[in-house]
């Protein structure tokens, strides 16, 4: 805990939680999924959250992204309490400062690769034409320059996940939240995706928080948060 606080004092935090709790009602009982979680993730970190099924790791990720709302406690993104924000502000935050990557890619099936990637741009009332260079650069990074006019159905799982990553990158966010990004991919493709995340983290300095079951995937990050029964175990730093 001391080490965690120590790091926080040294650098500005990207995202942090205070006594974060989330419970669901099952019948007449309240089941706690996240229990009193205090974590701080600094700018430039590549954090992996691991834990057994039902430990609350994905719930924590969605609370960090402001998609879900806590039962109690607070989430600060760049020192702003995201749960005090209105839906519109939160959406803008998700659009401009965060990027989401899901296990099942969650692409809009009737849009092309290019349109899917530019979706946050258009929703932010910006002109797609102004993002032409960024789009080309990102397509280059994810290796899909040749398939920019394909629809998701015409792509493999790995390629679809690259599109999801590109979509997360287009507005140059400070944070990428990834929920089991290689959970639906074969090991070779999984490795490629993790290497892509690693490059993004290193070259662009984007903070990444991923939920994963894979120890190998976790090793691409510099920190590991283990969870059990909704609580954070002692954080581990991975030397790189």
């Amino acid at each position, binding site marked *: 805990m001391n080490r965690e606080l120590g790091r926080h004092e040294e650098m500005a935090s990207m995202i942090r939680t205070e006594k974060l709790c989330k419970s669901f009602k099952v019948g007449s009982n309240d089941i706690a999924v996240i229990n009193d979680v205090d974590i701080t993730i600094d700018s430039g970190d590549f954090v992996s959250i691991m834990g057994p099924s039902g430990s609350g790791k994905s719930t924590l990720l*969605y609370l960090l992204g402001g998609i879900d709302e806590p039962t109690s406690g607070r989430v600060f993104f760049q020192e702003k309490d995201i749960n005090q924000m209105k839906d519109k502000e939160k959406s803008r935050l998700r659009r401009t400062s965060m990027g989401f990557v899901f296990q099942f890619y969650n692409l809009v099936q009737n849009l092309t690769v290019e349109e899917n990637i530019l979706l946050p741009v258009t929703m932010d009332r910006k002109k797609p034409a102004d993002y032409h260079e960024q789009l080309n650069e990102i397509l280059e990074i994810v290796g899909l320059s040749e398939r920019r006019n394909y629809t998701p159905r015409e792509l493999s799982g790995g390629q679809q996940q690259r599109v999801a990553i590109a979509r997360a990158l287009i507005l140059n966010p400070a944070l990428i939240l990834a929920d089991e990004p290689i959970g639906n991919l074969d090991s070779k493709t999984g490795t490629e995706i993790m290497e892509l995340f690693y490059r993004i983290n290193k070259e662009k300095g984007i903070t990444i928080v991923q939920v994963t079951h894979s120890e190998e995937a976790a090793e691409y990050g510099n920190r590991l948060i283990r969870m059990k029964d909704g609580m954070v175990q002692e954080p581990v730093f991975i030397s790189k």
Partner: protein
Amino acid sequence: MKIIMKHVIKNIFEKKLRSAIVLLTILLSTLVLFIGLSLNPIINETYSSMLQGSYGNANLVVNKNADDGSPFYETSELDLGELTPLNQLDLIQASGKTKLHEDEKTVSIYGLDTEMATEMDLIDVITGEVKLDHDTVIISQRAALDYSLEIGDRLEVTRGNDTYEFVVGGVSKPDGLFHSEKGNLLLITDSQKVNDMYGISSMVASTLLQVPAEELDSVITSLREGNKHFAVQKINDAETILRDEQTFQMVMMLSIIIIVLISAYVISSLTKLIITERLPVMGTFRSVGAHKGMMNRVLFLEFFVYGVIGSVFGMVLAVILLPYAADVFNEYKEYGVETIVTYDVVYLLTALLFGMLFPAFISFFRILKANRKPLKEVLFDTSFTPEKRSKWTVILGILFLALSFLLYFLNKYDGILLAILSLLLLFISVVMLMPTLLNGISNIMQMIMRSSSSGELKLGIKNIAGNKIVANNVSMIMVVFLLLLMVGISSAGIDRYVTNTLKKDFDITLSLPSNNQAIANEIKEMDGVSASYEQFISLGTSTLNNVEASFVIQGVHDFMEMDDFFEGITYVDIDKDKLTSHKNAIILDEYMTKKYNLSIGDSIEIQPVDLNNEPIEHSKPMEMIVSGTMDSSGFSSSRNSAFIPQPFFEAYFAGIFHELILRVENGYTADEVKESITDTYINHDLEVVTFDEMLGSQKATIDTLIDGITMIIGLGMVVGILGISNNLMVSFNQRKKEYAILYSVCMSKGQIVRMLLSEMLTTFLAVVIIGLFGGIALNILLTKLLYAIGMQTEFDFTFGLFGLLCLVVIILLSLSSLSLVRKVFKLNMIKELRYE
């Protein structure tokens, strides 16, 4: 099997809203089919029983040919020869006026033997006496109720300067002779009383005879031979056809076809959504060992169960509602004619089987297609799939569209089958081309909105073309829209014809008893008559270019005089030489000459036929020379009138109708002259109708028909709206994940709502654009169908109706969108994104 059946039943109950909509759709289509099929025979039965009822058991009516100026005769003058009729009733009639509730009413007084009339089912006294004293009368139950008349009440009837007093002695059911009472008052009294009114004794004006049905024809022949001064007619022939059965039947069939098409489309669309929703469950079944065939049967069973429940409820409701629906079409209901409702087992079974098997049949191919997918795809496939625009669908759509118009142009003789096929192809092509059309509209809209910074607006526009569920919604709205437009165009066209196109060429028309020129001459000279024209009309058929055509043949003394008299007739091209030199000259409507490619100088053969379209005995096809063309659209809606010289007519065509057309002098009204004629000739069985009455009656018939069709189409609209609403609701459920994805990566709930509103507005725009062009195409093709059922008039695209339907669509879309907006704001996005 038990588990599967349980699963099916549970599905139906768990998905309450969707099940309710599917069941209601099946229920309504079964109901409409049964009612639609049953109506025509019911109305026929009602009218024929009314007709028959007016004459009770009598099957012959005898009147005097009044060559001597008097319509009356003594019973002994009628030579029955060796005939001993089963029953015989002699009648004499008079008319007068009376005041009831301060209103002056026309009174018809029938003098007859009331006991014999009871025996012949012509009256049915329910209160008071059958046997009448000299001044007592029997009135109808309807008159008793309407004018609060009771036994013993006195009625004063004036006739010219004389006043007669009657006492109500009996009240009869409003059947039999009282069918003719309609809005007036009919009194039945002793025949001597009526004789006294005329100052005569023991005279009658007509005789009703009941003879054995099998001897009817021979009796007529022998009576005619023995009674040259009498007209002997069958009861059925004595009345002209009361209703245009063919038009009714055709319009009813059209309504049924439309409602079946709407139901089919709604059910088909629902099956698409239901199957898509079921796929993951089917995948689970298959993953535990169920094979494709079993899955097909499970889904098939589900739709069959829907069919059974829906059709059984539909039939129960139909059986309850049939009497009320039939009442709507009974034009004579207000005159006390009871609708005779019979339940036809064949129609019942047809509708029941249709309702049971229809959903299963429609879903069958979809089920097969869905289950053909590999297990993995079935298990993991989501309903959120892009709309695929198959090249072949577009090509087929264009081909069908072209074919529909090709059939229109090939259908030179206005054949009904080709007309229906052409319309059907248009609908199929619209459905097939819909994705392409939507894509085009979406692209144009995107181009227009290019400079807009609103991403959600653009995404909404794009979804119209790219999203299968949204495109499906638009398709359904479009088909229902076009079907309703089709009914609207037909109804408006028919209505407009009756009210605007028909020219007022006369004030009064009256049908004359056969061979009674004396009456015609007298009426022409009556006070108040300014001009008259006698029409001798018969029927004929001809085979032209291997197609049978019917003509209404009219004998004409002077063709130019006819043209001058009738404003509704305009000669287009007349060869005067031919008209004068050929005794067999004929003038045809240009609609017919164009249709059968006839020119002046061509000869055609026309076979004289009777009212039943059977060749007249001893007649043969007559060769006629086309000597002129005319536009008779303001004269007759079927435009099949044909004028021939009177001598030729008299020689070869039997005069079925002999009519006298009158114009009224200034200072007189048509009603006054009509009254004067009916009063003078009350005993001559004349049917006197003013132009306004004829128009009113035609309009009433059309209005009744349109009311009924509106009722049926209203039900179709309910089915359509249910389908559209269901589609929108089901599509919301299927798009929840799409909304959650958009929410998680870039959109606020407000933006999602705006995207949905943009979809709604683009949908509306698509409906307006496609509806306009589709409607115009429909208007062109529909004209052939309406021509085929005898409505040769202009059917214009009515922008008023189009606007009204657009309004309905925008209201429907707005209401659905309101519900969607509420749902989006309440949507639990996290639940829709898959995570543990």
